[in-house]
């Protein structure tokens, strides 16, 4: 009996000590917040071997989540975040990220012009991160159930597909509806799907309310949408190329496209936490993720476009024709037809201040879901 107690006590003490080491990330461990599919073993394992830094990734499905995670626990929990344009400014103004020195990134000079100092990560000439990749939010559909192939975003507002539609569970999705109205109802006068005054906003929400009975599920996790399409619960919806690639690899009959109205999209930046304790490893990661080969690998895996102009050659080497498929060599015109995510603010950019800010978007979205 006595020995049992002694053994238990020793075990308890033994457990508690290494605990002290676990609570703080060891030097050389990077905790990063990333979109699903951004930290695949394919390019993370070589990085870990080469740099000696370990990578832990936490997935987030929306920019909002990323902002919250970055701020959680006083802000020192994570070292890096792959923030999209609608999170990056919030992080910069909230002082959650620190400026980075592009001179420490060898491939920075190979970035396409538009991505070296884009407004979503460069403020007053200071760089608060390194551009990563960009891509469109696509229209995904089941090729066997949706015939002929859709050409327009109108397909996801079409009662023909009642109960088989899915769109992301994210307030920024309002911009997609606004984009559709921008092209189909010019009388509303929408110039930018992220700058909506009260009347334009009401019309957009109206469209979304009409869409609600058609929706099977608002997908919050990428795997939600994969399951929906694979198991016949959804035939058409708004998506990322990541889902298309995964479904095609699982032999599901799907295809995606950018409809004629254009699309919203994302432009991601790797940002470094203001309170990181692993700045060295963070810079090593930034340098690694910007190299042409890794840019190509990630672009092909997720289905997005790299910012490094040298990646195109690598993409064709890894997967013939992928450079063109993912527009890595596309002219500026393609880039300009995508309306990249940005945080809606009250300032409409035309002198007026009556646009709906993001809080109103979030409240409207919660009301819509009911």
């Amino acid at each position: 009996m006595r020995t049992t107690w002694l053994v238990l006590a020793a075990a308890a003490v033994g457990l508690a000590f290494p605990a002290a080491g676990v609570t703080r990330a060891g030097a050389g461990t990077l905790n990063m917040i990333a979109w699903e599919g951004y930290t695949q073993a394919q390019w993370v394992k070589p990085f870990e071997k080469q740099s000696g830094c370990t990578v832990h990734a936490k997935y987030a499905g929306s920019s909002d989540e990323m902002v919250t995670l970055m701020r959680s626990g006083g802000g020192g929990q994570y070292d890096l975040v792959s923030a999209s344009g609608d999170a990056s400014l919030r992080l910069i103004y909230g002082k959650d990220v620190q400026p980075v020195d592009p001179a420490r990134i060898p491939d920075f000079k190979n970035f396409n012009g538009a991505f070296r100092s884009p407004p979503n990560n460069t403020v007053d000439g200071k760089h608060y991160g390194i551009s990563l990749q960009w891509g469109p939010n696509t229209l995904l559909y089941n090729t066997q159930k949706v015939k002929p192939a859709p050409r327009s975003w109108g397909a996801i507002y079409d009662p023909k597909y009642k109960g088989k539609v899915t769109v992301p569970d994210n307030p920024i999705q309002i911009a997609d509806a606004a984009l559709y109205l921008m092209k189909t109802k010019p009388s509303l006068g929408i110039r930018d799907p992220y700058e909506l005054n009260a009347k334009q906003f009401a019309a957009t929400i109206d469209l979304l309310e009409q869409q609600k009975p058609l929706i099977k599920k608002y997908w919050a996790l990428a795997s939600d949408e994969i399951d929906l399409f694979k198991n016949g619960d959804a035939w058409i919806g708004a998506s990322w190329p990541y889902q298309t690639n995964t479904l095609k690899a699982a032999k599901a009959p799907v295809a995606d496209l950018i409809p004629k109205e254009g699309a919203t999209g994302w432009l991601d930046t790797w940002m470094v936490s203001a309170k990181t304790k692993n700045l060295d490893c963070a810079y090593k990661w930034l340098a690694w993720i910007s190299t042409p080969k890794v840019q190509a690998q990630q672009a092909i895996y997720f289905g997005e476009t790299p910012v490094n102009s040298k990646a195109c050659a690598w993409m064709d080497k890894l997967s013939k024709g992928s450079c063109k498929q993912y527009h890595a060599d596309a002219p500026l015109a393609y880039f300009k037809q995508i309306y990249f995510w940005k945080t809606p603010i009250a300032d409409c950019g035309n002198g007026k201040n009556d646009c709906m800010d993001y809080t109103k978007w979030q409240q409207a979205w919660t009301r819509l879901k009911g």
Partner: protein
Amino acid sequence: MAAGLDAAQGLGALGRARRRVGGALFRRPWLRGLGLLAPPVGAFGFFYVAALVVLFVSAFWGVDAFTGRLVHEWTTGNFSTLWHESTYRTVALRTIGIAAAVTVTDAVIAFPFAYFMARIARPRTRAVLFVLVLLPLWASYLARVYSWRLILNSDGLLNWTLHGLGLPSAGIAYSNTAMWIVFSYIWLPFMILPVYAALERIPHSYLEASRDLGAKGFRTLRTVVLPLALPGVVAGSIFTFSLTLGDYITPVLIGGASSQFIGNVVYDSVNQSSNLPFGAAFAVVPVVVMGAYLVVARRLGAFEAL
């Protein structure tokens, strides 16, 4: 006298000190009580209750719209939004409704099972059943909920079985019905255990006496067994009701387009909108509901049967 005894027992200095302390404690019961209760109550007070109080105080604050930082200014804006917008009423009613449905379902499923386990099964069978009921709790909650997707999907196991039997598809994937089924499944062991414990405690002599007095099986069940088992049922219902009331993961994985729970709105407020005060304000609803439920449950004797 005491010293003499110590010497007689050959105790060393430590033993004598222990005796003195032990004696002092024996003569001052309040000190013993304090020593026993101070650590748990103190720890709870410092870590848990204080944290709760701070959370609910923050329900009266606001946030900066752009950066999401807390603004320490007193306001009842959150509560007035909750009261005036019908969305939140809908969400609250839906959550409470499904929680109630799950509780009733689990009680109905668990009672005959627990009765079988407690009063009919042989001791060996009972032991096996006990292990079988506890074991699912060790298979990850997430994995079990996720596997229900496979069962309830349009092309899933359920429809496959129905088609095999010549029946039409049950279109319950991603719906409130699906959530009701999954919740009932997940919390079932939590209902079975207290009901089993309560039924097991009923002395056999009571049932014999009831029969001797002329009651047939059903009458005995209604007038003797049910009242005695009620505390166990209510204790189990505390689990099923509160666990459903606060859950937000199953609605995300299993729910459909109109399946938001209180937990989802609170979670989104905190994690998506960075609006902790609003989340805290809405979180008051399940606290009030559970508070009322606990008061009723205590009346019905559930606390002795947990």
